[in-house]
């Protein structure tokens, strides 16, 4: 790929070994995917933050990589960590785990990376704008950025997003190019979607069916809310590796080569496969992290009542602070629920925290709880989840 003189010099080590390593990484990826050149990115969002997922190899890498003084040169944000960085003791996170997680956070801070840990950076002071190029790693944020915000990002990994945060660059290929952002599959939705869970189930089915292709979703007549689009994209990017979807009414430039139809029966089948029948004692909401609107919905449902089961609501610290000012957080906590920041049910050491199975409204969570934690979950809508916690 073409490199500018300045990029060549970085590659040769003129600005230090860490920057050279970051550049080698992006150039190797760029060459493998026939990128023409680098493009400047406005922000980077880095995955691989929880000690549970990156373990000792990740921790050792970050220790070494952060030790030579390289710092982020663009806005850099993190995916959820393995615990609430303030309230981990109260929530039963083992001390040895917490020490490792805090060590990881130090290495990120040393690189001037913001320690707002969230999978919805676009609702935590990290908005990506229409036609803006970014390098984000969280798959649900990538699909939301490309499809809803109109920003441009590939599905980055932890190491490439970290390299992009240091260099402010990403190789120009894939979702950074308009000609690649054209739907290939038309998905005809034949049923009415009622709850947030229906959007999550639909996304899961689409991801399984189209794999890594770009679907255009047709037949949803009422414009979905941002919360519904978040649920739709998150499960699509978990069951498949879909980087972007479209909801335009008309096909784009005749690239669609397949039409697939989905009805209530397909959604029921996804639910039957993913959801347990068991009435678990823990309810977890917030995969992806709860928006302010969703926190308000939970607060309204529990206000003045008492939970009979554990109710854990995961969000960013940024949104929790706002939810506190508006009284949503205290309404949930006074009812016996918890508004937990910086982490989620998938990347925290949830078994060690005393959970053996859970109820949630997210197909993405159910998918990863099964594959990464060998844990079963039951799927319900947000309202049903809260009612379950109260009963």
């Amino acid at each position, binding site marked *: 790929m073409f490199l500018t003189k300045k990029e060549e010099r970085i590659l040769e080590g003129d600005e230090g070994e860490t920057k050279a390593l970051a550049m080698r*990484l992006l150039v190797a990826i760029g060459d493998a995917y026939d990128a023409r050149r680098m493009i400047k990115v406005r922000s980077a969002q880095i995955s691989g933050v929880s000690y549970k997922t990156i373990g000792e190899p990740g921790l050792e890498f970050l220790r070494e990589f952060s030790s030579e003084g390289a710092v982020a040169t663009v806005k850099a944000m993190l995916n959820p960590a393995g615990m609430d960085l303030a309230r981990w003791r109260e929530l039963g996170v083992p001390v040895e785990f917490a020490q490792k997680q805090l060590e990881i956070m130090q290495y990120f801070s040393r690189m001037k990376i913001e320690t707002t840990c969230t999978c919805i950076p676009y609702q935590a002071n990290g908005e990506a704008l229409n036609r803006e190029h970014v390098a984000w790693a969280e798959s649900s944020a990538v699909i939301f950025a490309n499809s809803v915000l109109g920003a441009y990002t590939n599905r980055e990994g932890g*190491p490439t997003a970290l390299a992009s945060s240091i260099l402010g660059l990403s190789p120009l290929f894939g979702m950074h190019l308009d000609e690649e952002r054209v739907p290939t599959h038309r998905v005809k939705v034949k049923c009415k979607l009622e709850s947030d869970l229906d959007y999550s189930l639909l996304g899961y089915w689409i991801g399984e069916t189209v794999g890594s292709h770009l679907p255009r979703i047709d037949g949803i007549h009422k414009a979905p809310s941002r919360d519904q689009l978040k649920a739709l994209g998150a499960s699509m990017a978990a069951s498949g590796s879909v980087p972007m979807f479209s909801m335009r009414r008309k096909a784009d430039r005749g690239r669609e080569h397949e039409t697939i139809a989905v009805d209530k029966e397909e959604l029921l089948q996804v639910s039957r496969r993913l959801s347990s029948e068991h009435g678990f004692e823990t309810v977890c909401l917030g995969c992806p992290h709860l928006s302010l609107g969703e926190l308000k919905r939970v607060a309204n449902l529990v206000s003045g009542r008492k939970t009979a089961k554990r109710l854990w609501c995961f969000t960013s610290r940024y949104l929790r602070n706002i939810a506190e000012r508006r009284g949503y957080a205290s309404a949930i906590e006074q009812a016996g629920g918890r508004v937990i920041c910086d982490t989620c049910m998938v990347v925290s050491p949830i078994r060690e925290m005393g959970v053996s199975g859970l109820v949630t409204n997210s197909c993405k969570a159910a998918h990863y709880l099964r594959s990464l934690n060998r844990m079963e979950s039951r799927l319900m809508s947000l309202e049903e989840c809260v009612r379950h916690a109260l009963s």
Partner: protein
Amino acid sequence: MHSLRLEMKGRRVVAGQGVGEAIISKRAVSFFGGVDPTTGIVVEVGHELEGHSIQGKVFIFPRGKGSTVGSYVIYGLRKHGAAPAAIVNIETEPIIIGGCVLARIPLVDRLDSNPVEAIRTGDWVEVEGNSGIVRVTKR
């Protein structure tokens, strides 16, 4: 009796030279959860290489899969002296590329014949990461 030699031409992805005994996986490999970063032993339950070590060998498999944390596992292998000498893929992807750059492991893909079929576990393999040439001495 002369040993049979083969030469294949592929694409350089990560430069460098690596020589060793071949170890083949016919299936895609997830380093995250699949390989112990401290020993180089394949730990994925039910994997055809479960219990075998990739340390010092030329590791040949179709492609990477799974979490991008796999790149850190490949880096961990290097830190613990358990890295493979080189990696050859049918078609590589960013997890393996990232890991090989961080760990300085030569990486070649898109060979002119299928390496998973043409090479057998135990063959002697020389990988020229710079030119993309892979030389095999059959055993």
